[in-house]
């Protein structure tokens, strides 16, 4: 079947998947960035055991494939009485893994802040929390923006793994259409184009944000 006529016939059934993928990726990205900030805060608090725990956490999540926590949370949590919906379980797994990456990205940018700024903050009498909120965070986020953009793209692509736990998203939609029609190439080619469009949109948003923030500085 020609790709255009394929799209005319089955295009609308991709819509659900497109919305599912976009919303899941958005939620998981925001969650991962917040969680990454949290992990950074623990590190900055200066307690040795705190950094130790964060280090261990980052090691564990960076060195395991994300499908593992997806399965563990989705199929494992009901055994202890937590029957959250699939999209929440999958989103949580993505947040947990990508949060680890984000915290490392932020830590790199944190090191770029000159020490004198902290001396200045202390001499002004700013509390540690206010130092973090008013001095560290705004600079770290701007420095990290390109790297965070990359991470968001990874999250977006990783949402395809949630098709394994019955989340309605693009890959799931392609699988359903393949099973319905046997036309695997058409089904997955269209999905590939849709992912490409989503990634391109995310990239554009980050580039615009980066330019705007650099200008304002």
């Amino acid at each position: 079947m020609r790709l255009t006529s394929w799209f005319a016939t089955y295009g609308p059934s991709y819509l659900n998947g497109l919305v599912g993928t976009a919303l899941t990726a958005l939620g998981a990205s925001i969650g991962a960035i917040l969680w990454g900030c949290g992990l950074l805060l623990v590190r900055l608090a200066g307690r040795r055991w705190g950094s130790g725990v964060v280090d261990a956490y980052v090691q564990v999540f960076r060195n395991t494939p994300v499908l593992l926590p997806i399965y563990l949370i989705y199929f494992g949590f009901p055994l202890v009485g937590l029957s959250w919906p699939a999209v929440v379980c999958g989103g949580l797994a993505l947040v947990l893994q990508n949060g680890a990456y984000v915290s490392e990205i932020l830590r790199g940018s944190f090191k770029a802040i000159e020490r004198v700024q902290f001396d200045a903050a202390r001499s002004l009498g700013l509390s540690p929390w206010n130092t973090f909120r008013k001095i560290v965070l705004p600079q770290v986020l701007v420095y990290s923006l390109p790297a965070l953009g990359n991470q968001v793209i990874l999250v977006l692509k990783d949402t395809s793994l949630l098709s394994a736990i019955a989340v309605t998203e693009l890959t799931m939609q392609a699988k359903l259409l393949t099973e319905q029609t046997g036309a695997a190439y058409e089904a997955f080619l269209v999905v590939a184009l849709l992912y490409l469009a989503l990634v391109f949109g995310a990239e554009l948003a980050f580039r615009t944000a980066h330019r705007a923030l650099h200008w304002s500085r």
Partner: protein
Amino acid sequence: MRWRSVRSAIAAAALVLSGLIATAGAEEKSRLDIVLERGKLIVVTMSTVPPFAFTDDKGQLVGFDIDIVRLLAQALFKDPNRVEFVIVTAEGRWPAIESGRADLGVGGTTVYPDRAIRVAFTRPFIDSGISILVSKKSGIKSLSDLNQEKYTVANLNNPQMAERAKRFFPKAKVLTFDTPSAQFLAVRSGRAHALQIDTPTADYFAAQSKDEFEVLPQMLTASQNNAIYLKPGDFKWWLWLDTAVAEMRTGSWYPQYSDVYRKWFGKNPPPQKFYLQQ
């Protein structure tokens, strides 16, 4: 001189062209001949549909469908082990056939008219049905019990599953997975209260833990055909496979077929011919 070289150029072009036409007109080689030359079968299958095709405790791919393929290899090469299996998930079956990567496919695959547009099927090598497996905790005793909003059913991602869900339990919630083992895991972990699957697979899952699961006596479909699928258009290859299946079910290879059937289902297959007493 120049004229002669032009003439020879034309002659050479004509030669190349006629060669091209000759190859285009030549009959495409049958898969049967390719398989015989290669000396082994390449078979696409799923590995998560017990007892048809699954991996056992030792990590070996086993099952009823796998043994049927070994019978085919026995017929072709006098050696049941000359088979290479390509393992895919449900939706990976069709491109593996369409691209010519595998000679044929098995693995609890049901014949449907809309599927037969894209792939060719032999006659069925086993009768199947669709049953419901429930967790005993759920308290579901019949199909009509299941049709309530508080229940969730795990489906496989083919449209026939969705259609049956709409017909038999429209009020229940539905989750869609890409392997039967994920469906079973969903029921096991309490994600779903029930699942629908081929009857032999449901029976196999239920036998894993008789205290936790049971198969409802009422079936969604009493008869379905599971068959070998292949790329359409290769008559010689299809005919050989279809003949092999016919001989297994109703002819000279019925004893071998019966052995395999008893090994996996613990009972005799349907009689060879309806008018023959067994």
